[in-house]
C-alpha cells in the first residue's frame, strides 16, 4: 500500500459502517451457512459415508469432475489463443468480440442451458451435423462438457489478458536479438511468464464448473450413472425431503471447492511474485 496509516484515524464512521457490515453479513451469509454446519454435525459418520459413497453419487462425481476437468483444459487451450489474439492483434470488431467474452457471466444459466440443448439436439443447428457422424451432442457426457466449457470460458481469458498486457517487451526483444525464433520466444519466454495466470484461470474455470447447475441440466438429459451431475443429486435429495443426504453431498462439494479456492490463492500469490519480479 502506498502509505501507512495509524490505527487511530481522523475519518468518522468506522463504528457505524463496521457494525453494519458485521450485522448484515451475519444475517445474510453467516447464519444461513451455520445452518449447514449445524446440520452436518447431526449427521453420523457412517450415515455420511454411506451417502457420499453410494454408487449413484460416486458416478455423479465422475461425470462432474471429469467433464469439468476436460472443459477447463479446453478453455485453457482456447482461452490462451483468444487472450493472445485480443491483446496482441487488431482486427475489425475486436472491441465487440472482447465484450462478448463476458457473455457467459451475463447470460442467465437457464438461458445458456436451453440454448445449448437446442443447438446440440439431434434436430439442432449443430446436432444435425453431429448426429450422422454418430456423435451425440445433447443428452450425453459430451453435452455436459460443452455446457461447462461455455460457462468457464471467460475465466481463462480474463485472467490471462492482464498478464499478457504486462509482459515486458524488452524480454521478447532480447530473445529475438539473441536469435530466438518467435516460437522459441513463445515457449521459453512468454509461456513460462504467463503460466501462473493460465493455471489460475483454468482452475477458476474448473471450480466454477464443479458447482454449475443451470446450464447443464437441460443439455445433460440427466441419466442416472451417466449424465447426472452432483448438483442435480443434491436437488433430488431435497425434493425427497432427505435433508441429511443433501447436506452430506453438499459438504463433499463445498470441501472440494474450498480446497480449489486455497489452490487458486496460492497460484495467485505465485503469479503476483512472478509479476513483481519481472
Amino acid at each position: 500500500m502506498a502509505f501507512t496509516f495509524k490505527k487511530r484515524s481522523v475519518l468518522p464512521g468506522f463504528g457505524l459502517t463496521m457494525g453494519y457490515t458485521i450485522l448484515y453479513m451475519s444475517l445474510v451469509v453467516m447464519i444461513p451457512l451455520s445452518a449447514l454446519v449445524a446440520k452436518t454435525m447431526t449427521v453420523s459418520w457412517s450415515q455420511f459415508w454411506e451417502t457420499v459413497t453410494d454408487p449413484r453419487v460416486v458416478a455423479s462425481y465422475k461425470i462432474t469432475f471429469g467433464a469439468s476437468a476436460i472443459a477447463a483444459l479446453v478453455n485453457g487451450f482456447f482461452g490462451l489463443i483468444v487472450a493472445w489474439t485480443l491483446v496482441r492483434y487488431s482486427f475489425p470488431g475486436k472491441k465487440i468480440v472482447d465484450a462478448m467474452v463476458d457473455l457467459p457471466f451475463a447470460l442467465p444459466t437457464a438461458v445458456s442451458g436451453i440454448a445449448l440443448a437446442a443447438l446440440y439436439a439431434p434436430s439442432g443447428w449443430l446436432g444435425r451435423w453431429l448426429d450422422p457422424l454418430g456423435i451425440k451432442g445433447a443428452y450425453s457426457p459430451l453435452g455436459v462438457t460443452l455446457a461447462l466449457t461455455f460457462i468457464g470460458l471467460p475465466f481463462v481469458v480474463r485472467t490471462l489478458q492482464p498478464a499478457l498486457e504486462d509482459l515486458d517487451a524488452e524480454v521478447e526483444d532480447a530473445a529475438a536479438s539473441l536469435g530466438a525464433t518467435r516460437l522459441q520466444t513463445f515457449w521459453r519466454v512468454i509461456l513460462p511468464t504467463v503460466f501462473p495466470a493460465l493455471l489460475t484461470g483454468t482452475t477458476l474455470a474448473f471450480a466454477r464448473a464443479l458447482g454449475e447447475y443451470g446450464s447443464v441440466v437441460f443439455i445433460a438429459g440427466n441419466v442416472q450413472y451417466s449424465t447426472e451431475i452432483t448438483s442435480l443429486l443434491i436437488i433430488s435429495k431435497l425434493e425427497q425431503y432427505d435433508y441429511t443426504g443433501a447436506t452430506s453431498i453438499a459438504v463433499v462439494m463445498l470441501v472440494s471447492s474450498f480446497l480449489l479456492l486455497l489452490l487458486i490463492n496460492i497460484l495467485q500469490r505465485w503469479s503476483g511474485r512472478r509479476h513483481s519480479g519481472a
Partner: protein
Amino acid sequence: MSNPTPTIPAAAATAASSSGGAPGRTAGPASRHARRDPWWVRATLITITLLFLGLFLALPLASVMAEALRKGVGAYFASFNDSAALSAIYLTLISAALSVPTNLVFGVAAAWAIAKFEFTGKSLLISLIDLPFAISPVISGLIFVLLFGLQGWMGPWLREHDIKIIFAVPGIVLATVFVTFPFVARELIPLMQEQGTDEEQAALVLGANGWQTFWHVTLPNIRWALLYGVILCNARAMGEFGAVSVVSGHIRGRTNTLPLHVEILYNEYNFVAAFATASLLAGLAILTLVAKSAVEWQVARRRKASAAENAAEH
C-alpha cells in the same frame, strides 16, 4: 477485475528510463517488429478465436432468437400475454429491486470500513465477503432450506406462526440477496483502498462533516465502480437460477422468476414460449454487457485524462 498494483507504474518508469539510454526512439519500430508474429500466424489465431467464440457464444445467442421466432412474431409476443409470464416478470423485478439496493448499501459500508481504516482481521473479513462466490448455486439454496424449510432449524416455529419463507417469495429474495452479496463490495474495496484517505482528510480539515465528506468527496470518486458493481449485481439477481430453483417450489404464477418460468415452459415442450421468455433474459445480458463496456471505457478515458494531467503538471 483491475489489479491496482503500484509496482506497474514503477516498472514502466524504469523501462522508459533504460530505453531512454538508447539513441532517440529508434528502439520503437525495431522492437515492434521483433514482437510481431508472421501474418499467417496472426490470421490462423484470429480465425481460431473467431470460430471458437462464434461456436460457443454467438451461436447459442442466435439460436435463442431463432427458436423464439420459429412460429412467427405473433407467437413470440403471445408468449408474454400470459398471467404466469407477467407474474414471473414481476417477481424477477421485485427480487432484483430488493437485493440490489440492500447489497449496494452493504457494499458501500463494508468498503468504507475496510478501505479507510486499519484493523486486525481485515483480510479474513474480505475473504468472508467473497464467500458466496465460492459456494455453488444449489448449495446456496440448500442452506436456506436447512434454515427455514419444514424440517429445518426454524421450520417448526415458522409453521406455528404461519410464516412461509421456503416455497414462497421471501425465500426467493433471501437466496437472491445471498448469491449477489459480494458484487458491489468487491468492486469498491480495491478501488477505495487504492484511493486512500487524503481527499477525505482534506475535506474534514476544511470543516466538512462525515456525511458531506462522503457525498461530495468519496462518492464522486467511486461512482463508476459503484455503477459497475450494480450492473453485475443486477444481472445476477435477475438471472439466478440454481439457488432460486431450490427455494422456489415452482408454483406457477406465484413463486416463479423469469429463469424458472423458462425452465417450466421448456419442460412442457412449449419451446416457442420458453425461448421467447429466454430472449428477454438474453436481451438483459446484452444490455448488461453494453453498460459494462461503457463504464469500462469511461474509466479508461478518465484514467488516461488524469494521467495526461499529471504529466502536464510535471
